[in-house]
């Protein structure tokens, strides 16, 4: 049974959606923190903004689900396709010298996966209400993607910087 088939009621779907967005927001904040600590304010600001959007989206979904009882699922019991939620950026993809352009590309990958997740459900869930809402969310993600694409146009930097690091590591302890 595919995940889409298993998400057969609105509660489950909303639960997945909220967690998807909230985890993404937390991760973006985490990445922003990393960049702040490592003196990359530009990319930090980018991730912070992305966190903000994910959080907005999460709140929106929470609002829409008010009155419903979201399910409580342990983090590891979500059946995401990957190791984490589709919109949650991979910690190991970042580098302190990364450019905003690189960060945005990562974000686009996340949004793409989020889109694909909703899209699959919009096609495969047995519940028509779920399918409808998922289609709506997929559409939103697509808008995000387009927004990011425009944003990226303003940041054509390559990530050559990441490869040539003139500053050696040092030893704090």
């Amino acid at each position: 049974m595919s995940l889409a088939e298993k998400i057969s009621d609105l509660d489950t779907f909303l639960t997945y959606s909220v967690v998807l967005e909230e985890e993404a927001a937390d991760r973006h904040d985490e990445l922003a923190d990393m960049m702040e600590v490592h003196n990359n304010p530009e990319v930090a600001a980018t991730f912070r903004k992305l966190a903000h959007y994910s959080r907005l989206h999460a709140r929106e979904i929470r609002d829409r689900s008010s009155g419903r009882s979201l399910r409580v699922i342990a983090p590891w019991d979500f059946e995401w396709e990957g190791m984490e939620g589709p919109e949650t950026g991979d910690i190991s993809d970042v580098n302190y010298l990364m450019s905003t352009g690189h960060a945005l590309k990562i974000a686009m990958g996340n949004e793409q996966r989020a889109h694909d997740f909703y899209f699959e459900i919009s096609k495969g869930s047995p519940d028509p209400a779920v399918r409808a809402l998922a289609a709506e969310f997929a559409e939103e993600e697509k808008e995000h993607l387009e927004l990011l694409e425009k944003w990226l146009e303003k940041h054509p930097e390559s990530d050559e910087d990441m490869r040539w690091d003139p500053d050696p590591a040092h030893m704090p302890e």
Partner: protein
Amino acid sequence: MDQAAQQIALTPKDFKSALKPVWCPGCGDFAVLNAITKALAFMGLPREEVALISGIGCSSRIAAYTSVYGFHGVHGRALALASGLKAARGDLTVLVAGGDGDGLSIGGNHFIHACRRNMDMTYIIMDNEVYGMTKGQASPTTAPDWADSKLTPHGTGIRPFQPAGLALTAGASFIARGFTGDPNGLAKILVAAIGHKGFSFVQALSPCPTFRPEQMLWKHHVKAFDQEISSNPVEAAQRIQADDGMSTGIIYQNERPVFRPGTGVDNGMGSIESEFTI
């Protein structure tokens, strides 16, 4: 599981401190922090009843990034410090975390003895096969031909330890391996480890992008063990030996007597003082 989960009062974030980690962006250790905070939140443990003890190393900085009681001790001695704490305060949930150098090089003796002693605590080695904090020297889990350290410019030429194997032989009663690329899977393992009565050992494969950039490929090699949890040490030993060190999951779990010193019952000084008189 739903029921237990409903009792959750604190979120994973509540288990994080206000300090922002100094770890390099991309470091696996972030995911260990996430996994720990998720596990604690899921288990609904009050922050003040948990203590996280660590040694010295990049990974050992983790204590300061949680909001439970913590002790960032000296290099290699986290398990000893934690054992004293647990002996005196059996009521606390004691976690210990640190690096492969901290736990298996300078701390190797405490590691095998903690496994043997089987106190009720959970030990997480954040294994990046390198000394991160001191700028990239070989650790006991480093492959013999890794030649990027100036200290051992031709590689160590020495076979690495298998931490899980060592833990098993030394007597750990719960042994698992997780991967930071799968923080949720790691969190799940931690819930089982913390729930286990006795010494639980979790090796968390935690890449160091700074000194071991090649470890960024780990995500393509890591896979789940395809067997069930074993309670048979011989079987577990075989599984560990046959594996390439990249399989994750709970390898071994077995109940054995948990070491708990003292009875906690105070019978007073009286008779002791009178021993002195003749």
